């Protein structure tokens, strides 16, 4: 399945946040979105996932979602968004519950994603008992269980410490390579973008516009890509840093 965003503009009240952003996410692609903080990345992802109605522009999909897909556009949240009163397994089941699956299908999906995310031994644990890295694995497992057509990840590693981030980045790379998912990966971390993505869209400072699109080949040197991304984003970040966060 392919996801298209056409000429997306958005304003919160009088604050313009996005201005004419267009992009197409191809099936199987890992598309990165980078940009200075406050430039509208989360807003763009919410619009892409149908959680927020844009002030202008349109979002559409073409093609059919993969077999067994229950929720075509599925989120992974920065702060995990786990239900603290449910166990790991209960959290993973949440997204499956609205679909009236057979008990066997439900169990099959849960076991598969718990294995993929190495959570099998923690199925009965509550979120508060887990490290940040484990919590985000639950967030990933919950998203994978519905077999999404496009995985929408909003800074999924930003709430984690540096070492855990490296650890999960490796796991993401393996997961993306093996599960053939389509991903929009929003981050402000340039090494995540360089390491994980096939293509990176750099947004300007608020109101966000597409500033540049960088394709990343298998053979490219990651640190060079990272340096290139930084050279694109640097001036925007510096200018954004000198603006009021909230102009009200």
């Amino acid at each position, binding site marked *: 399945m392919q996801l298209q965003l056409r000429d997306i503009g958005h304003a919160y009240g009088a604050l313009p946040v996005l201005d004419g952003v267009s992009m197409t996410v191809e099936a199987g692609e890992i598309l990165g979105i980078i940009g200075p903080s406050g430039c509208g990345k989360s807003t763009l992802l919410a619009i892409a996932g149908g959680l927020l109605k844009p002030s202008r522009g349109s979002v559409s999909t073409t093609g059919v979602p993969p077999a067994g897909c229950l929720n075509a556009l599925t989120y992974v949240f920065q702060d995990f968004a786990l239900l603290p009163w449910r166990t790991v397994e209960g959290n993973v089941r949440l997204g499956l519950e609205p679909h009236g699956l057979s008990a066997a299908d439900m169990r099959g999906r849960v076991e598969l994603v718990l294995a993929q995310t190495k959570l099998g031994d923690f199925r009965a644990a509550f*979120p508060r008992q887990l490290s940040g890295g484990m919590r985000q694995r639950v967030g990933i497992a919950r998203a994978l269980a519905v077999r999404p057509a496009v995985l929408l990840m909003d800074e999924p590693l930003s709430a984690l410490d540096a070492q855990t981030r490296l650890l999960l980045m490796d796991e993401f790379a393996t997961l993306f390579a093996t599960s053939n998912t389509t991903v929009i990966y929003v981050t402000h971390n340039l090494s995540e973008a360089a390491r994980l993505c096939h293509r990176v869209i750099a947004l300007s400072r608020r109101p966000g516009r597409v500033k540049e699109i960088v394709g990343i080949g298998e053979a490219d040197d990651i640190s060079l890509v990272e340096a290139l991304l930084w050279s694109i984003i640097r001036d925007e970040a510096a200018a954004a840093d000198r603006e009021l966060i909230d102009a009200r």
Partner: protein
Amino acid sequence: MRDDLTAPVVAAHPVGMRASGFQPRFIGVLGLVSFVGIIAAIEVLARSGTIGPLSFPAPSAIGQALYQLAISEQLAKHLGASLSRLAVGWSAGVTAGIIAGIAIGTWTGARSIGLPWVAAISSIPKIALLPMFIIWFGIGEGSKIATIAFGTFFPTVVNTYGGVDDVSRTLIRMGQSFGLSKWAILRKIVFPGALPAILSAFRISATVGIILLVAAEMVSAEYGIGAYVLQQQSLFQLDRLMAGVVVLMILGLMIYGLIALLERWLLRWR
């Protein structure tokens, strides 16, 4: 940089630790000792005549009266009447309060209309409405139950909608992003998220309920702990009067204990 760390240094001053904070602990034995101590002291004062029998009865006399009350069928009658009023009034008030609180917490219409009313009516001492309820529902059970229900409704509403307001918006968006229906979000996210606040409302409303119960029973009732206490006052039976008060105390403690058990079980994820 010095590399000879064993060489004598000029007068070393150890750094004192000064950030231990306040660390109050609960020492159960101390609590028990103070309890027993004060009761013993009153006993001594009462027996020595320092406290006259018409001021405060000796704890042993209260105990005796309590025992007599317990073995006669009187306790069962009074306590039974009180508990059934409390149970019916409290359940009605709390159930309605939870529903109204969730509505105010999730729905603009209910919030806009409900909040001003809740604010206005919350500040009324609910017992002031008993005469009105007696006119509406009669002098019997109806008016007492209505007063308790009305009085427990408001603290429950306030706590519940506060609890709903505190449910993370991200969790609700998460539920929506997975295609959960509104009803499923209420049931699986909003209600469990507000449950800690609802359970703490149980505690507040139980206290309010007991106060209103006793007050209403003092106004008009044949049976009930409140009625019993008032009867003993008119007979100048201070030991029996205090026995009734002790029954209320035990009732309150038991309700608190039950709520604590319920919390430990329902909120074990915390």
